[in-house]
């Protein structure tokens, strides 16, 4: 295995773990719908504290799914679109693998015994 693959590997595992929490998923959905947002705005209507939201954003940041930048007195959060797409593409490849395997299973069991 090439060195580059190891790096890709180590970076990919946390993505799905990070998205495994409904509150983090809803933060991702919010950033996706609203674009770059401040912590205050991301906390609105969530029913959890700013510290709580901040903690979830840090998990997403460690997985490479969001990034933040200071803008004046606020920190603005936004999605890392490419990282999200890479994660989804990997799962879709495996899903397509199952479709192909099921096609072969179907041909196998439906032909005369």
């Amino acid at each position: 295995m090439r060195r580059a693959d190891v790096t890709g590997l180590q970076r990919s595992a946390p993505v799905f773990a990070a998205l495994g929490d409904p509150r983090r998923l809803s933060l991702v959905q919010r950033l996706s719908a609203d674009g770059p947002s401040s912590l205050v705005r991301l906390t609105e209507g969530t029913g959890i504290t700013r510290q709580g939201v901040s903690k979830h954003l840090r998990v997403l940041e460690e997985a490479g799914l969001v990034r933040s930048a200071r803008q004046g007195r606020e920190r603005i959060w936004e999605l890392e679109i490419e990282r999200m797409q890479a994660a989804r593409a990997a799962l879709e490849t495996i899903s397509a693998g199952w479709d192909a395997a099921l096609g072969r299973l179907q041909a196998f069991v439906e032909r005369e015994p």
Partner: protein
Amino acid sequence: MDSTTNVIEKRVTLKAPRERVWSALTNAAEFGIWFGAKVDGAFTPHTRVEARLVPTQMDPKIAAMQAGFADTPFTLFIEEMVPPSRFTFRWHAYEAAPGEPEPVTTLVEFDLEEAEGQTVLRIRESGFDKVPLERRAKAFSDNDGGWTLQGQLIATYLERAQG
């Protein structure tokens, strides 16, 4: 992106009796034919079975496509076998490199239901949040368009078989 990032689910109705489908899934030799694998040993609950990817015996055109990743080893950790309705195993489709931890497994579940002489098969693969996914995807996509192109070939194959 929704909560399906951790799970792949498929459902297909097969025009074959449930016992026939059960046999195709759980008889290691039959499994090898449609999946495209050479399996060493039989499937029995709570055992570990070694296998290698081999070109499918179903179609020469598809076999040619698969030649590029022939001999890739993988391990099946058989869990439940409840004939003729439920078969589950864990697996990982890549080898750990030296110094890399033992690869994490995903859980594959096959559930079979009878429907007027036909069989409704549901497949669920879960646990991707724990797995270095790019590795598995890579195993299937390395070969010139890999599984996607293969899927198209299979559609053609099925149409031809029915026509």
